[in-house]
Every structure is written in C-alpha cells, then in structure tokens.
C-alpha cells in the first residue's frame, strides 16, 4: 500500500513538472504575441534608444534563443530582473515581498473559512430544517452570490469612512481585518454548503444508524464516524481554494491598498514586463500544482477507500 502511494506521488510530481514546462512554454510565447512591449509608452522613445534598451535586456536575440536561455534559468528559479524597474529589482525579490502580504492574508482567510465553514455546515446539518439551518443557508447563499468588490466597498465605506475605526490600507494587523474577512467570505459560504450537504448524506447512511444502534454516543458518532466522511469533499475543495486565495485577489488588494501578488501580476502584464510575467506565472503554477497534489494525497489519507491510479 505504501509503495503504491509512493509510486502515485512520484507519478504526480513528474506530471506536475511537465505541467510547469508546458506553462512556461505557452506563457513565454503568448506574452511575446501581445502587441506592445516593455518600452511602449505614450511618448515614444526613439528607434535608437529602443534598440539599445532591447539589447540591454536581451530582447534583440532570436525568440528561440531567448526561450532556451529563459528555460534554463527558470528551472533553477532564476527569474531575472524586472524590466519595468529598469533592472533595479529581481523578479524573485518582488515575488518574495508581495507574497508575504498575499500569503498572510490568504492563509488567515483560508483558515477562517475552513474552521467556520465546517462548523456552520455541520451545525446546519444537525439542525436540519430548523430556523438555525435556514438562517445559515440564507447567509451563505448571500455570501456566495455577492461579489467581493461590493462587499469590500461596503465594508470600507462603513469601517473606514463612516465610523473610522479601521485604516483603509492593509498594513498593520488592524488593516488585515477587513481584507481577510472579505476574502474568507466566499470560500466560507461554499464550505458551509458543502459540509452541510455531505453531512446530511452521511447522517442518512446505514453505518451511522448501526453506530447509534450499537450504543455510540452522539459525540462519538459525530467525530468518529460522520465528520471524517463528510469532510472528503471539503478537502478536495480546500487545496485549490487555498492556492487560489493565497495567490492574491486583484479586487481585494486594490480596494484595500494591499501590496499583494494579485495586482502585481495584472500590472506586470499591462507593463509587458516579460520576466515578471513569466516569474509570477511559474511561481503561481508551482503553488497551484503543489496544493492540488497535497489535497489529493490528503483525500486518500482521510478516505482509504479511494483507489489510487
């Protein structure tokens, strides 16, 4: 069994590696295809200056040479210098810096979403068809339906403008409160609904009835028999969700003025900052691939009945 698991992991890692190579290749050629370049500006630079700048950043070389050079460096995590900063900062340092904000806010938000989401979902299932259940369901439906730019704008207006009790920029811990809450709302609501429906399924199954019949207490049934099974879909969802949330939200970062990775990514594309677009894409691909892998393995751990292929 363990050998099987190890083989499975090895296979998945190799596949992940292949995915990353494909992403690098596609992104590399795709960004070059977008009209405009890193030196495009309203006031045109002279052709001589442009040629010199392209030479300075190696953009004058044939595209395939650029690609091969890039691939070699990217695989050892050398993403080069940001062109937009005119060589002042490395893409690696940009990623490290922006990630501290996106990761902090994202992980807190994911943690809140999972803990509260599972608790509320279980509660709603156990209190099935009661007022509690209905209140939770209405709230979670509303949270799933409301886009984050509306929620953040309302929160920003109330807390920062009207009551002025929280800062409008996410810099110290007080500034983290609103963005983490906003970010966690959607996954929290989603997890609530997932947990509720899977718990309802599980609670209706034969082995739960058997457990009660053999005299197990409610709490034992809950922790030993039901929770583990009802969490399976949540775990499947949680991996990609954490990757998604940690890699930043353009909207939330922009509204709360957080120097996160989401807006950096969008800005790098607008700026045609080729090395930065590439570096961020590869980094985010790694994150997503790893999180999906982890959640697949965890899925197997909580649910031994799953066959590995």
């Amino acid at each position: 069994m363990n050998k099987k698991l190890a083989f499975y992991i090895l296979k998945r890692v190799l596949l992940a590696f292949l995915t990353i190579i494909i992403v690098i290749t596609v992104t590399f050629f795709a960004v070059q295809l977008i009209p405009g370049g890193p030196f495009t500006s309203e006031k045109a630079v002279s052709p001589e200056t442009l040629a010199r700048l392209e030479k300075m950043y190696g953009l004058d070389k044939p595209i395939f040479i650029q690609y091969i050079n890039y691939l070699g460096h990217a695989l050892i995590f050398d993403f080069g210098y940001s062109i937009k900063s005119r060589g002042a900062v490395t893409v690696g340092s940009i990623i490290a810096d922006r990630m501290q904000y996106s990761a902090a806010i994202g992980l807190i938000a994911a943690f809140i979403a999972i803990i509260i989401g599972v608790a509320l979902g279980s509660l709603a299932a156990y209190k099935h068809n009661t007022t509690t259940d209905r209140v939770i369901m209405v709230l979670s439906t509303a949270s799933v339906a409301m886009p984050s730019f509306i929620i953040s704008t309302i929160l920003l207006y109330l807390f920062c403008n009207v009551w002025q009790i929280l800062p409008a920029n996410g810099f110290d811990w007080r500034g983290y409160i609103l963005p983490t809450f906003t970010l966690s709302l959607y996954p929290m609501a989603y997890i609530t609904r997932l947990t509720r429906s899977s718990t309802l399924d599980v609670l209706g199954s034969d082995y739960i009835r058997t457990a009660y019949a053999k005299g197990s207490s409610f709490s034992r049934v809950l922790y030993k028999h039901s929770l583990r099974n009802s969490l399976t879909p949540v775990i499947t969802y949680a991996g990609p969700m954490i990757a998604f949330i940690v890699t930043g939200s353009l909207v939330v970062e922009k509204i709360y003025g957080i120097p996160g990775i989401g807006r950096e990514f969008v800005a790098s594309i607008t700026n045609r900052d080729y090395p930065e677009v590439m570096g961020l894409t590869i980094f985010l691909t790694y994150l997503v691939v790893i999180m999906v892998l982890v959640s697949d393995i965890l899925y197997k751990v909580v649910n031994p009945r799953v066959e590995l292929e």
Partner: protein
Amino acid sequence: MKFKRLPKVLVLVSVGAISACSGSLPSRTAHKDEAIYSATIDGVKRDNLTWANAYDAVIAKTKATSGAERNEYLHQAEDILMSTGAIAPIYYYTDIFMKSADMDGFYSSPLGYKFFHRATVGSSTDYTVCVGPKGDSYDPAKNSAVDGAIVISHVFEGLYRWAKPASGDIAADLEPAQATGFEKVAVGSEGHVKYTFTLRSDAKYSDGSALKPSDFANSWARAASGKLGADYGYMFDCVVGYEATAADEDKYLPLSGVTADDNAGTLEVELISDVPYFLELTAFPTYAPVKLANVQKADGSEDDAWWLDPAKYIGNGPLKVTSIDNKEGGKIEFAPNANYWDNANTKVTKLTFALTDDDNNQLTNYNSGAYKFIDSVPNEQIDSLKASKPNEFKINGQLGTYYVIFNVNDNTLNKKLANESQYVTFRKALSLLIDRNYVCKNIGKAGQEPANTFVGKGIMENNDGVLSEWTTRSGVNRDGSGYFKVGENDYEANCAEAVEMLKSLGFKYNEKKGSFSDIPTIKYLYNTSSGHKAIAEYLQAAFKPYGIKLKLESQEWATFLNTRKDGNYSIARNGWLADYNDACSFLDMWTTNSGNNDAQFGR
C-alpha cells in the same frame, strides 16, 4: 519588429491575433502624402509641397532661428498641422487634486510637479500625501513620470528652480538655485549661444560632500548617453555634442558643449540655438546632479538599484529620503537635508509619500484624514466633491491637450473621396460636429476648457521681450481666434457649416431628416478607461443624427499605443502633455520620422 523573429507558425498566429483585435489593416492608398501643403520659408511662400518639404522644413527653421522669427515659424507649423484636419483638439487638460484646507505653503510647477517641503498642515510639519503609485525609477536620468519627478524634485535641485509664487498654487518664474546666476553670449555664426553658470560656492550633497560643476557635467553626460538609453535623453538635444553622446553606447561621453571649471566654480553650456526654454530645462529632473560614485558599482557598471537605497540615493535638494518601500501600498519617507543651502524656507520636519494607484483608496484615506493631499480623484466623484469640499477640490491648468486624431492613410472612405484634399474637408467637418463645451461640462467635469488649437493653453511665447500666451496669438491671423470657433453659441453654426462641407463632397443629404445616407461606418479607437469611453460614446451620439456612424473599439493600453503608432486605425483618441513650456514641445512630434507622428503625416 519583434514578430519577424518568430517562427512561421507563430507569425501566422500573431498576425491573426492582431487583425482580430484591430480589424482589417487599412492598405496604403493613393492619397498618401499628396503634395498639397504650403509653407513660407525665408519670406518665400511655396505651395503644393509634400509633408517633409513643408512641415519638416518649417520645424527645421525653428531650430535655426530665435525670438519672434522662431515663434512665427512655430505658429506656421501649427497652421500646417491644423490645415490637415487630422488633429481635432477637444479640450485643454487640467490638473485636479484634493488639498487639505489648512495646508499652507504648497505650490506646483506648470508641469504639475508638486512641492511640499515648504508646506505645513495647520501646525503640523509631519504629514502624509499621495501623489501616485510606486515609481518605475527615481533615478533622475531614467524617470519619465510626473509622480517620479515630484519625488526627484524634493531630493535634487538643478541650476535653477521654480520659485514659490507670491499668490496662487502655480509657479510662473524660475529663480537661481544651485547656480547664483548666469551670463549668456552668442557664439560663432551658426546661431549658437553659450550660458556660463556660476555655482554656489557652498553647494553640497545631503551627505555633506561638496557639489562641483563637474558633477553637473558628468550627470548630464550620463543622462544623455546612449549607454544609459534613458527615455528623456533627448532633453539634451539642444546642447552641442548631444548627437555624439547619444550615439556612444560604451561610455558616458562628455557633452562637447559642456565645460566645467571646478576651480572657478563655473559651468559653460553651449547650445545649438537660443532656445527660450533652456533655463527651464535646468530645473527639469533629467538635469539634476547625481553623485556618480553612487550610481555605479565598484567596477564602473551602472548600479540599477541605487535609488532604492537611502544611503546611496543622495541628492542636493531640500529633502533627503530616509526610507523607501517602493511598492503598491508602500511609502517613501523624507526628512530635511541639513546641508541644503536654503533651509530657512523648508518647513516640513518629516514628509511621507504614500504609494498607491487606486484613486478610490486615496480618496478614502483623504476623507479619513490619513492623507492631506491626493493627486487624483475618481471621475465619478468629481461632482460631489466639488459641491461638498469646494475649498479642498482644486483645479489647476496643465500644459496639455486632449484630442481626436485621424490617420491620414486611412482608406475607409476611398470609394467616396477622391483625394487628400477631400479627406481634409471631411475630417474638418467631423471636427465641427463636436460640441466641446458639452464634453468639458458633462464628461470632463474638471474645469477643462474647449480647445481650438493643438498647442496647449498656458504655453508662453516671448516676442522680443513681450511675453504672451500662445493661445492669444493662435490661428492663421495670429489674433487668438484659433482654428475654428468654440464659443458656447457657435456650435449650431459649426454644425451647419459641417453639413455644407459634407454636401460639397457629394454625400447624399436628406433635407427632411437632416442626415446623410451614404457615409460609410468609421471606426473609433480608444484605450479602455471609463473617461475615454464616455467621450467615444458622446462622439458616436453627436455624429449619429447626421448619418455618420462610428463603430467604437477599445483596446488595452499598450496594445492601443502600438496600434495607434503603427497607423492601424481610422480615428483614435489621443492626448499630449508638454515636457517644457514651449510650443515646440507640441510641434516637433509631427515631423515625418518622429516616433509620435501617430497621424502618419508624410508616410
């Protein structure tokens, strides 16, 4: 250029992608660069000239003449430009910002560079403002952004500087700064002039080291050099030796027209002509003296990151940077420079620039009191802010023009129009159908003024000692009437004239409906932004009653710039901000080979 190097398959894909986003590419046709322009050079008027023989020749004369003669050539250049109908000015830009009611001592240069070092907020000398997002570079030579220039203008000082105005917010005059004064003499027979600046004997960098004339000479050589390849290197193109320095990619070749004498404390600068804006250039960030030892690594190569390190980012201006966190949501902190010569006038004890590009976030912080000044305001909030905070919402003039540009090589109407002269009439008719007052009042909303010249309002000209605003002498009669009428009551007559012009081109006019029935649909290109979209939709609505259909197309910023530059459009939005207060900052750009000749004149 880049696509040529792609493999064949990718070229096909890329061409497909480009034509998918910009529509079919107009083919160049017979009306391309027809010889229909007129120019008067050295008193001789000639007609039926090509663009290069008319416009380029007139611009060349502006480089070889001075004073009133030069101004007349500049006006003539604008006459030729406007005679094409390819430039339809809409309004002159304004600079809007929010400033705390109790901020005192603030001022701005005519280019919109804000100065805070002399400003207090109530009794506070330690406050935060926001003038824009993180900078691409605060290296004076590499920066080309206004917000970057604001940072640099606090940390560095040129030979001259903008003087704080006695009243109002906008500086109008220059005053001696690192130089105590200058002498100017004519040199040789080619119209060259030589400035000899005398530097302050006590001039120092903020680290206490002496600032010498050679620091200026070396910094200028670096900024103008081909080795650095800076966007604004061309700001030195009036200095003798610029061409050679700009062509040298291996070293900072000294500008041959610049001679520094550290013992005498003088700096001599020879110019190719007596350009009236040179003193202003000495106050421009690109002309700032950097400490060369700090911008280079030990091996003599450029240290691209020197400006991110406060220990290396050493200037000679009123303030010095104490900390810099250059990212969205980051900040820059300044403290007074103890070695600055004019500290009696510095009021702040600590100044913080918050860095963010989100204007809603800026406004929230302004409203909460966290920021005492913000340099941009969400468009949709302008009306309510004007009403609720009239003492804080400020509108300043800005040297720039928002305009609509026509591609002179566009062939959309080739089946209807026979030659370039007919296209000129057509473009002028379309321009007359635009109600500029409506656009200013209902779309711009920021105090813009309707424009009937391309050279922006606020640009000055000096005719042998008589200083006047360019727009007061604009138009073919030099009487300030511009190139068409833009009064509130002129619109109706303009429209009637436009209809007659279109009729004269042979378009079918239905008198009952008051509209034309056979004008092909034309594409209007703009970059994605709510403000540009609103103007595009206005144009569409304004032309529609006359049977002229505009198809609107928006593109993302860099794509848009590329499409417009390559001439793959029919009509597009455009805007221009001057680099310095002189009409040539608006007119040099239209020469045949200029990188900014988006109208494709002469091509």
